[in-house]
Structure formats: C-alpha cells, structure tokens
C-alpha cells in the first residue's frame, strides 16, 4: 500500500458543509417522480457501443450471425481502462460496425448490433449468497467482469477506480446520491424504491476498497429517498448525511467538500486524500453484479421534458434506441425540438434520437421551445463578476472567456482551465448570455490538439536525430572497413591502427559527404539522378 503524503483521516462526526460557489436553479423533477420506476419494453434491435466509458474500447468476442444469450459477454475489457459489454437480451448479432453513438456532435463508433429474438433466454447466473466469504480482490474481479463503469455520468471504469483506491488506501467512501441537476431523478427514484439494494451495494464497495468509513450523501429536498435510506440503514455501519441543495453538489470534488469541508487541492485526485466517491447507481449495479450475479445490462434513466406525455424513470436495457424510449413516453413530435443527454446544465445535446442508451445515460431530456427557448444573443462581457462568484472550481470564468476568445492557450492553462468541470453555473448566471461552457470546451479541445501535435513533432524530431546518428555511425563503419589494416577487425570493433586526428578528418569528410548528398536530394537537380536510376532498372 503506497499512501500519498496528502492522505487524511476522517474521524470527526460528519456534518453538511457549504460548497464554494454554486447556484440554486429551479427544480423540475416532480413530473418524472410521479410514477414508479418502470421496466422499459424490449426493443427489436439493440446497439451496443464498445466504448461506453472513459478509456479504451472493449474488444468484441462474438461474430456476426452468432446467437447469444442474455447476460452473455459480447466484448471483453481490453486493458485496465476498458470494461466488458454484455448482451442485454437474447438474440442474434447482426453487425459489428460503426454507427452513431451519443456524444458531442455527430459521433460514430464501433458498435455491436443485436437483434432481439423476443424470448429473453438468459444464460445461467452465478449469484453469490454471502459476499463476505470472498476476499476483496475476488470481489474486485467480479466487479471488473460485470462491466460496471461510473453510472453517474462520468463513466470511469469502477474496477479500476477501486483498484487504485485499494493500492493507495482510502479512509472514506462517499456514496454520491446528491443528484443536483434540475431534471434528473434516476438516483432518487432508485433509492426511493430500492434503498436496501443500494445500501447492500455500498457495503460491498466498502469491503472492496477497505474504507474505514462509508457515508451516503444526499440532498435534503429528496424526502422520500432520505426516509427509505434511513430505514434501510437502521442496522448498518454506513452513515447518512443530508446535504443542502445546491448545484453542483453532485460533482466529485464538490461532494467531498460538502461532506468533509475539505477541498481536494488542484492537481491532486480525491484518492490522494484517501477519499473514494461512487455514485448511488453504481452501488446498485455492484449489488446486482455480486449478490445476483447479473452484469450491467440495464440502468435507470430519467425521461422527461414537456414534449413527453408521461415522463418517467425507466429501467431500460443498455442499447435501447433513444427514439424508442421517447415513443414509450408518448412523445409529441410537433413540440420536440431537440434532446439533451444528461441534465439541462451539464448534459450534451444529441444530434439525433437514433442513438442507443448507454451505461452513462442518466437522463434523456426532450426539449421544447416553451421550456428551452432559443438562447438570447450573446452580448459583450460587462465584467460583473457574477460568474466568478458561482464557479465551484474557484476559477475566473470571465478571464477564461477573454483568453478563449483570443485563443491564448498558455494563459488558459495558467488560469486553470483544466480544473473547469463544465458545470455551466457561470453561463447560467451570466447576464450577457455568453455560452461560456462552449468556449471552454472548444478551448480544452484546442489545448488537447496542440499537445498532441507537439507530441507528434517531438517524436518526429527524435526519429530524425536518431536517423542522423545512424547515418554517421554507418559511414564511419564503412570507412573502417576500407582502411588498410582494418580487415583484421570485425565491423563491430573500433578500428585501431590510425591516429585520432586521422579518424576525425575521415569522419568529418564522411559527414560532409552525407550532408552534400542530403542537400543534393532536396535540390531539383536530382531529377537527373532519377533518370539515371530509371535507366538502370
């Protein structure tokens, strides 16, 4: 176990702390919370992207035309930052091809297409009746095999996060049930109805990462869920902490601040301070994976927005088309103007509804002009500073905005653009209606691109240097061979029988010849050589 010097111990009684900045937007969760979580019907075709998480895509292990059973592995993890994909239902693989996936703009990725046979024949599961009988590493392997990634939206492979936590040692495990986005109620409805299983998942997670303390943190406006949790937690060592409602309390660093009062310093990860944060939905998936043996093939997702007649939380199979789910909620197409995956503040606009639901889809928000009018035109920044007051990352959004506009990437880095969590609080309060987050996303992309280019050119440069070094070495070797007396020595041994000065002269001459050859080649006169070459061949 290698502990970071920033490791903290959390022994004091926990209480709700204030987070820095943040906003209190109006909440629109009631519509979807009116009904219970419903299992979504089985769609005819499912599309399963190989990359639904942060990291490397999984590796398909099935072939086109193959019949598969529900829960069968379709793609295996390919390295630590890759999670497997399982068949959500039984059917036939119709294609393994590139198709549209949810993401920024129109994105295409390698996907497994599965045609459901409607029978839903399941492969045999191996439930684990008492997880305490297994060691934490065995549990970790089971979580890894179940294809779980952070279901709160970020999608980081859960097993990898746990592995790092075990390595560095964690004191505190926080189960994040804050769910601060105004439209999302997936975790809330999950906890309201299945709190016992979330708690069981939290207990498993705690025994895997060996955290001394575990706390479930939830915002105070979710009364039903809090009640369900306190009942489920009655004889458990896990604590419940009710937080103040504020956006973005659900951010990883923000919830740490809200629970412990401690801000993870810039440049460090929560695990460096001995904290692990997992989402409530992830805990539920872990319970399913261990106790019931079920891999991650479905998730609870919120379908909401005014074009939907019956907004609700669906337990939908991964791979279900978004348009199919909207149909199930009775979408009024005339009102529907667009779809956001994720919440209204941090979500991303989908290009089309013909994309599948993936593991990180916690909400699908159908937009209408009534609820989401076209944004007001962007005005000049008046330097009111409202944005800096609400930025939970303690950045200066107005400065970042100015540097984004002038494309000053160095200054953007200096001012901590990398720490921006793209929460959208700054854009929400901006009286000039500046789409600040889009500026930051464009700039982050530009920085990544610049760094990539720099890496490439560095590689080219080092290969060029090696090439020159190689030429030099080969010329000297060739020279050694020609020299009288050098026949005795093999090519690998340095030639002895002449003075250093002589050798230096020879090398210099050789380098000059190479240089001459090089400059000849670049000059147009070498067309002649080429003609000569052609004759020869």
């Amino acid at each position, binding site marked *: 176990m290698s502990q970071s010097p920033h490791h903290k111990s959390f022994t004091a009684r926990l209480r709700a702390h204030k987070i820095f900045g943040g906003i209190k937007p109006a909440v629109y969760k009631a519509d979807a919370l009116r009904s219970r979580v419903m299992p979504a019907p089985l769609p005819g075709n499912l599309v399963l992207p190989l990359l639904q998480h942060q990291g490397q895509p999984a590796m398909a292990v099935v072939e086109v035309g193959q019949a598969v059973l529900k829960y069968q592995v379709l793609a295996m993890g390919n390295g630590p930052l890759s999670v497997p994909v399982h068949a959500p239902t039984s059917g036939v693989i119709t294609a393994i091809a590139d198709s549209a996936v949810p993401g*920024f*703009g129109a*994105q295409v990725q390698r996907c497994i297409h599965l045609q459901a046979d409607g029978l839903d024949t399941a492969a045999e599961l191996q439930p684990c009746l008492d997880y305490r009988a297994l060691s934490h590493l065995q549990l970790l392997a089971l979580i890894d095999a179940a294809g779980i990634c952070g279901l709160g939206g970020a999608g980081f492979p859960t097993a990898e996060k746990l592995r790092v936590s075990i390595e560095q040692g964690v004191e505190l495990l926080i189960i994040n049930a804050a769910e601060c986005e105004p439209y999302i109620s997936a975790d809330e409805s999950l906890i309201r109805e299945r709190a016992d299983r979330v708690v069981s998942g939290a207990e498993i997670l705690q025994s895997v990462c060996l955290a001394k303390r575990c706390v479930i943190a939830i915002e105070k406006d979710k009364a039903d869920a809090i009640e369900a949790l306190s009942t489920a937690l009655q004889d458990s060592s896990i604590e419940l902490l009710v937080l103040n409602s504020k956006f973005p309390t659900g951010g990883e660093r923000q919830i740490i601040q809200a629970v412990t009062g401690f801000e993870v310093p810039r440049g460090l990860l929560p695990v460096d301070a001995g904290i692990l944060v997992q989402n409530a939905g992830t805990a539920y998936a872990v319970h399913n994976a261990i106790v019931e043996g079920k891999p991650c093939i479905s998730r609870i997702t919120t379908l909401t927005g005014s074009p939907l007649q019956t907004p609700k939380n669906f337990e939908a199979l991964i791979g279900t088309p978004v348009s199919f789910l909207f149909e199930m909620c009775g979408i009024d197409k005339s009102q529907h103007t667009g779809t956001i995956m994720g919440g209204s503040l941090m979500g991303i606009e989908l290009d089309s509804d013909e994309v599948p639901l993936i593991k990180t889809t916690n909400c699908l928000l159908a937009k209408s002009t009534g609820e989401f009018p076209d944004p007001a035109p*962007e005005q000049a920044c008046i330097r009111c500073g409202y944005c800096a007051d609400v930025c939970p990352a303690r950045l200066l959004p107005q400065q970042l905005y100015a540097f*984004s*506009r*002038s*494309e*000053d990437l160095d200054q953007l880095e200096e001012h901590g653009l990398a720490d921006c969590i793209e929460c959208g609080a700054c854009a929400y309060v901006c009286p000039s209606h*500046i*789409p600040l987050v*889009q*500026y930051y*996303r*464009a*700039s*982050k*992309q530009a920085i*990544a*691109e610049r760094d*990539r*280019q*720099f890496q*490439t*050119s*560095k*590689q*080219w*440069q080092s*290969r*060029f*240097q*090696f*090439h*020159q070094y*190689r030429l030099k070495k080969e010329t000297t070797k060739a020279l050694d061979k020609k020299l009288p007396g050098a026949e005795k020595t093999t090519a690998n041994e340095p030639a002895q029988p002449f003075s250093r000065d002589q050798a230096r002269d020879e090398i210099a001459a050789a380098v000059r010849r190479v*240089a001459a050859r*090089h*400059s000849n*080649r*670049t000059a147009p006169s*070498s*067309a002649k*050589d*080429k003609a000569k*070459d*052609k004759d*020869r*061949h």
Partner: protein
Amino acid sequence: MYPLIDTIYVQVISGSLVLLLAAHLGLKIWQALLRQRLLQRSLLERINRLLPQTQCGQCGYEGCLPYAREICRGDAINKCPPGGPETIVRLAALMHRPVEPLNPAHGQVKPFAVAVIREAECIGCTKCIQACPVDAIIGGPKLMHTVIEQECTGCDLCVEPCPVDCIDMISRAWGNPVIWLLPSSGVGVRQQLDTAV
C-alpha cells in the same frame, strides 16, 4: 622585526584579496557566459518547437533544427512551407519580427499527407528508405517496402527517388475532428493570419 611582519602580512592579505577578486570576476564572467548560452539554447529550443518537424528540407537546410539554428543567427522566418502561415505568425511573435508571407521560392502550403507505397509495384530498390529522414519506411533489398503511417511526416522526400514511381502522397486529416467550435471567431492568431497572409 615588525616592519618585516607587516610587509609579509600586507603581501599575504593583498595577494589573497587580488586572488579572491580574480576568482570572483572569473566566476561572474563564467556565469554570464553560461547564461548567454542557456538563453541562446532556450531560444533555439523555442524556435525549434514552433517548427513542424517535418524534416523535409524545403527551407534549404538539412532539417528543422538546423533551420532553427539559422533563424537564431538572423535568417528569414518565412521559409517553412509545411508550417504554413501559423508557424510564421508564431515565429514572428517569438523573434519580434514583422509577419511576412511565405516565401514561394521554398514551396507552397499543402494539406497534410502521408506517403503510401503501392506495394505490388515496389521492386525493393531501398532508395526510399535512404531518402526518409525519420526512418519511417520498412523493407530490404528486393523485398516489398511499406511506410509506417504513424511515423511518416509527409515530407515528400521518398517520392522522387522511387524509380518506378509507386509512392503516392495521400492526404490525411491532420489531427482529430473539431467537435466544439468557439462561439465567436476569435481575435487572436487566426485573425492575424487572415490579415497577414
């Protein structure tokens, strides 16, 4: 007796003082020289970082680093076609020189492309291997040759030596697709570019 001691003392003290002074001066000079060299070196490195590292030699030198060295010594900054106007603007800013258009004597700005050998036609003459400045071609005498796409800088140098003309330059997207656009057209590098070139 005393005067003798005095003189010895005076001599020793003044002598060591002079020595100390000389040592101090030497140290200062040495430091200054070092700083100068470091500065020059860092300037060279900064220039080199701005060059695209295509190693095509169109600037008239053997590669990007030699050209960077010449820019340090006062050569023109507009001789690099693969870098294009962006590189010129950046070099101009670094060197405090005016932005100039690319010198057409050194070539035109072309979209990024990589070399691809039509393998069926390759006769295995190894000429392209000898031309490639970054050793991006694999093959041997009388064997089929091929280009490692990731390593190819698109310098064009292998196209000409090929006796059977079986190397094509195929354009490739340079970098990842742009997903997020700046809501405004910025007033930074890009606008300077439009006005300058």
